[in-house]
């Protein structure tokens, strides 16, 4: 157990680091986007009463990228939010690599299984 114990500690350090960095970066992006959004649209009327879904340009990666290039606040915020959602997913990928390095194949399998559930969500989100 002493050998694998050391590696568990390593994994903890990496995971802690990934989570913290992910939150900091995504919040910085959301903040920048928020300032631009308020500067441009601060005086329009807020309406969230009826559900109509977010505008087209925020629904696809291409649309978001386009929005960032053209300096659209909401696209930049959305990019930050995508980074935030990606943070725990990246954490899972790091755990999978960690378990492979520990030669703990049972948990490598469990981790990849969890990852697959999320990927299924990504590909079926639009359908159904």
């Amino acid at each position, binding site marked *: 157990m002493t050998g694998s114990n050391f590696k568990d500690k390593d994994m903890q350090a990496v995971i802690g680091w990934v989570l913290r960095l992910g939150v900091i970066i995504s919040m910085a992006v*959301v903040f920048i986007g928020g300032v631009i959004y308020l500067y441009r649209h601060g005086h329009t009327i807020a309406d969230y009463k009826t559900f109509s879904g977010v505008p087209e340009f925020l629904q696809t990666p291409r649309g978001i990228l386009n929005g960032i290039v053209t300096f659209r606040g909401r696209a930049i915020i959305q990019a930050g939010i995508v980074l935030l959602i990606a943070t*725990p997913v990246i954490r899972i990928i790091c755990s999978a690599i960690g378990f492979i390095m520990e030669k703990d194949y049972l948990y490598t399998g469990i981790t990849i299984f969890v990852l697959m559930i999320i990927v299924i969500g990504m590909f079926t*989100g639009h359908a159904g």
Partner: protein
Amino acid sequence: MSVIVFTLIILVGAYFAGLLGSLTGLGGGVVIIPLLTLVLHVNIHYAIGASLISVIATSSGSAAAYVREGITNIRIGMFLEIATTAGALLGAVLSLYIHAPVIAVIFGVILIFSAIMSLKKKVQVISQTESEWAQKLKLNGSYPTAEDEVKYGVRKVGGGFIMMLFAGIISGLLGIGSGSLKVVAMDSIMRIPFKVSTTTSNFMIGVTAAASAVVYLQRGYIDPGLSMPVVIGVLLGALTGSKILVHAKSSGWLRWVFAVIVTVLAVQMIYNGVTGKI
């Protein structure tokens, strides 16, 4: 209401939601959703999307610290995440078919349950008995205290797993962390010491929420104009709360105040749901 006023109101509200949430352990989502829907008349689907994003931020932020200290049990977390992510996905898909008033009523019921749970006194029991499954899955572990390492065993893995599936569905359906349900699974059923169960629950919440967030994102439920003040406010509030918590002697009265607020909000959500106002 202009966007700038609307954003500022949410920012302040979210700050206090995050502050109270971290001080009482209930999470910010339980206040954010009633604030957005009851006070600002935001459509509940948008409110759920924004709350879910704030849940990912606060859980990732605080999990980072606990994981480094070695209190979180990564294997228990990883194994139970099978149940919570599958549940979250199911919950997110279900929410597309369940009508808003029904969601409001379910939300109210879960809120009342969470409030009661936050008041329950926690008695630390270290179980040394370990089930066969816990051994096979290497779930038993230890955590550091000021004196030495405390070893613990895990029981009733199957029961805990099923409870986690339910917690995941609720999280995906309502856009909250459903931490109180996760703690029930780990504390009461699996007999994991609460220091480990609360931190591991926190660790899992980010992944659970991310699983349903990928569905909500594609469905257009996550509006950047709304998510921005919610996520920034809740995160700053939670940061302040964790700083206060280190110095605070007792948060007993605060728990009571918060539980009462949450119950009042819950009753209003249920009332508005039943009368079809949401």
